């Protein structure tokens, strides 16, 4: 920065600008940028469109009426300069130089008479791109100005003394159960299930009912297990359940006297195991 540093030494003078955290001490004169600052300078641009916008703004030019020859000259100078100081130049900068040169040459061609529509202007596409880019450049700046969480606003987060986590039991539907049963049957040896499946559920329910009753009462009178209100079928179901339980040695029938009341009790488990 030595030769071009016009003012004071770096560490004493306040920086003119901070570019990506680096202080730019010297003032670039027009397009002449001190070589050391060049890299920093280049990083300040987001690409050829950004550089072009800078050149246009710098000279207070109307974007809709760019003096293409002049802008092209400056742009090419700039690019040439960057190449001279052997900065690695993104290919896009060179592409833009070519585009500018092409527009310039077309501008030099004599205009056909009676064409004033802007679409005919060789600069139209470039202007459209510049405008479009500028809109988003500004949108980006506007976005950065929005109050941002963690930078400008902070969410309230107070604490809580205790969290009582009660995990609610999962919901269950009869369909789950049915599908589970279907599933397990599919896996099981299917023919083995034939006989059991014929048993009406009500007999099994009654079996459980009777056994449950015998858990609390040692003796249950036979007749109390037959509810006449259930009708013929109910009686049959109860009776079948008892026979089934008897067959499985789960209950015993007890009749102390002939024609006396019949009692049922849970089977005394054999001690022969």
């Amino acid at each position: 920065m030595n030769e071009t540093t016009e003012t004071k030494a770096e560490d004493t003078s306040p920086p003119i600008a901070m570019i990506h955290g680096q202080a730019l001490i010297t003032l670039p004169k027009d397009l002449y940028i001190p070589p050391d600052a060049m890299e920093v300078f280049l990083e300040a641009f987001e690409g050829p469109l950004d550089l072009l916008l800078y050149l246009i703004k710098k000279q207070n030019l109307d974007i809709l009426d760019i003096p293409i020859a002049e802008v092209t000259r400056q742009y090419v100078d700039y690019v040439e300069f960057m190449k001279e100081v052997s900065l690695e130049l993104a290919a896009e900068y060179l592409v833009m130089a070519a585009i500018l040169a092409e527009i310039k040459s077309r501008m030099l061609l004599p205009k056909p008479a009676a064409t004033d529509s802007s679409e005919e202007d060789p600069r139209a596409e470039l202007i459209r791109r510049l405008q479009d880019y500028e809109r988003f450049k500004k949108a980006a700046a506007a976005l950065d100005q929005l109050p941002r969480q963690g930078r400008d606003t902070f969410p309230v987060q107070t604490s809580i003394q205790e969290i009582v986590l009660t995990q609610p039991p999962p919901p269950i539907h009869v369909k789950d159960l049915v599908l589970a049963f279907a599933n397990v049957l599919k896996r099981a040896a299917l023919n083995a299930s034939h006989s059991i499946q014929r048993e009406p559920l009500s007999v099994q329910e009654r079996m459980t009912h009777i056994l449950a009753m015998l858990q609390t009462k040692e003796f249950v009178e036979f007749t109390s297990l037959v509810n006449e209100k259930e009708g013929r079928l109910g009686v049959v179901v109860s009776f079948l359940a008892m026979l089934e339980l008897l067959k499985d040695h789960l209950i015993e029938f007890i009749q102390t006297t002939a024609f006396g009341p019949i009692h049922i009790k849970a089977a005394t488990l054999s001690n022969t195991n």
Partner: protein
Amino acid sequence: MSVSPEQLQQIIEAALMVAGSPLTIRQLQHLFAEGEQPSSADIKTILVTLMERYHQSGLELRELASGYQLQAKAELSPWLSKLWEEKPQRYSKALLETLALIAYRQPITRAEIEDVRGVTISSPIIKTLMEREWIQVVGQRDVPGKPSLYGTTKTFLDTFNLTHLDELPTLAEIHDLDRQEAQLQVQLEFANTEIPANSPDEEITTSTHE
């Protein structure tokens, strides 16, 4: 930037709100630039004001070992805890199958369930089913080891909105449900390897009662 007394209170309150951890009086002082730091007495006064102000709210300002912290009152825990409540899990396939077998084939022993399912039942499953009061021990089978016989309970019927066990779908209905399910699965393009779409169902149907 000079700070008005009102702003001072706002800043201290907001700091306690957003910090996420207890703040000491010193830390609160350090929010302000050198030379503008309120005295610790000033801060204490503000803290007392805040404590009183929260009295009516669901918050309280507590002094803990590492500083002052705003907390939701303990009495609100039952509601607030719901914020962290985990989604209810699904019952495992093993649990559902065990329950289904007990429901359809009761009274049944553990060994018998295992026999049909082809795998052993883990104790937590039986425990869970007992805790939910869906199953009960209704007796012992008279075979060596005297295994417990399980059956379903009234709670079980209530849970499934049934009055009697025989309201449980029959195997034919199961087949229909299963087919619907299979169609649904196809629609959702879930490649369910465990439920072959049709064939095993056929076998089941032929063996159903009605």
